[in-house]
């Protein structure tokens, strides 16, 4: 028996949309400190799994827990507060807002100022605002966008938008960061840098779960990989085990 609960644990999670069984009896768990890969052909249920973990969807059955705390059915904001954050497969920034403001909104659950304190501007709120801005700037430095702070985020080149979205997700001080195809649309150089960044995020103590179609990237950065196919768990193991798994290869060749 382990003395500490797993960072993330799914027990028999299922989710269907009409006739489509997007997730079928998924169970796995992993500890903090890893980079966990999640792969599978198109429509396998990867994004749906992320939506279930973050609370955007409530599973039809099964349980999800973070550090032993059950989270299925909770409000998204409470789950973010407990320490899970995400990026989107199709970048979803607050486009009309500046780069640094995007990150400041990303820290919403760690700040407190409300309607009334905004109007009265008590000193505590000014201090919070200042600290927030400094923290946001640190995160921009971390992802390499230090000099873009005041630019309109919708005007950034696509590759930088991906980085900004990661910085925004980090702003809530997550324990677990879910990245949904962060390399999609990036060129080879950008993908290489993204691999380094993901390593740096893990070194900060943030556990990463990575959905990615770029196999070279996935195999090189992930410690463990889970394979989904048509809503079912097909395999789980080390990258080299997955690469030599016949069922995985068949799923990819059969569907891809």
């Amino acid at each position, binding site marked *: 028996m382990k003395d500490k609960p797993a960072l993330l644990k799914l027990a028999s999670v299922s989710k269907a949309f009409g006739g489509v069984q997007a997730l079928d009896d998924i169970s796995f768990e992993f500890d903090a400190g890893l980079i966990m890969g999640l792969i599978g052909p198109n429509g396998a249920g990867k994004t749906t799994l992320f939506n279930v973990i*973050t609370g*955007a969807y409530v599973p039809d059955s099964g349980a999800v827990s973070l550090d032993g705390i059950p989270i299925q059915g909770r*409000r*998204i*904001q409470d789950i*973010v*507060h407990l320490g899970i*954050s*995400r990026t*989107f497969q199709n970048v*979803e*920034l*607050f*486009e*009309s*807002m500046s780069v640094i*403001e995007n990150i*400041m*909104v*990303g820290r*919403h*659950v760690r*700040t*407190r*100022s*409300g*309607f009334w*304190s*905004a*109007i009265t*501007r008590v000193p505590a*709120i000014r201090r*919070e*605002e200042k600290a*927030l801005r400094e923290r946001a700037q640190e995160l921009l430095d971390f992802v390499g966008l230090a000099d873009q702070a005041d630019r309109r985020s919708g005007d950034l080149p696509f590759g930088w938008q991906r980085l900004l979205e990661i910085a*925004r*997700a980090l*702003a*809530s001080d997550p324990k677990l960061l879910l990245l949904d195809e962060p390399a999609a649309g990036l060129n080879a150089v950008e993908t290489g840098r993204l691999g380094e960044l993901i390593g740096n995020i893990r070194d900060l103590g943030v556990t990463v779960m990575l959905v990615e179609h770029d196999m070279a990237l996935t195999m090189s950065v992930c410690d463990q990989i889970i394979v989904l196919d048509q809503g079912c768990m097909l395999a789980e193991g080390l990258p080299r085990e997955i690469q030599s798994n016949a069922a995985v290869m068949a799923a990819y060749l059969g569907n891809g």
Partner: protein
Amino acid sequence: MTPSLKKGVAYALACSAIAGIGLAATNPYHLQVMTFIGINSLLALGLNLLMGYAGQISLGHAAFYGIGAYTTAILTATYGLSPWLSLPMAVAAAALVAFLVGMPTLKLSGYYLGMGTLGFGMIAFIVFREWDGVTGGASGFVGIPPLAVGPLNLSSGRNYFYLVWGVLLVAILVCRRIIDSRTGRALRAIHDSENAARAVGVGTMHLKLQVFVFSAAVAALAGFLYAHYVSFISPGTFDFLMSVRMVTMVVIGGMASIWGAILGASLLTLLPEWLHAFSDLEMVVYGLIMMGVMIVMPQGLTRGILDLYERARERHER
């Protein structure tokens, strides 16, 4: 100049301009029109926070304007309460109604939210018109007392002008502060992507409800000022067309722009005054001007005028 300094300078300029206008204006008609501009600006300002910043449409906001006006009318004229006591009650009444109406309707979005608020506005209008015993019904409510602070009577044209614009300037400051805060950023985030806002942990429903209630309270404040200024109110002032006029002020002035709210309110207040000369064709010319502005300046007057200025400066520099 830093952005915040620029805003400070603009604000100081606006304050002195208003003080100057108040001193220079001698014609009571001019003062009256400018007082109405102030009241309408207040309406547009509150609605702009909801529409321009949070991206939620309301086609029933005249109801809150009316609730503010009728609540203070009933409390002061029928029950003899001091207006300064009825003010918080009028604002609270509108806020409470907004809370109850907002809870179910703000779950809707886009056209559906528009329809939901539209329906509410119509119900409110019918209540104003049909509840004869309390509101005076279709023939209106007479005898609303003027405002006074101790010996100072505020009912004179100049004093009321200063009162309305003073309230407006404070409201601008308050809105500015809300927009530049954590709450304001979250509102703009909802506007850009409600899905992403929810994903980073913004309680979108709660926040939309808050801003809806706030904008209703501002509209009720405008209704209070209106009622004690004109001393006679009737349901027609708070009908569906008024709701549309409020939305138009926000859109024409420029969404998500505080000064735009004032520009839009000014244009919509002044146009009918100027267009009297066209008599029968008044509404046609009015409509044509609205269409023209939106075709030439799709982002609204504020953005449009800024663009013209930039272009003129570039030409000058070449």
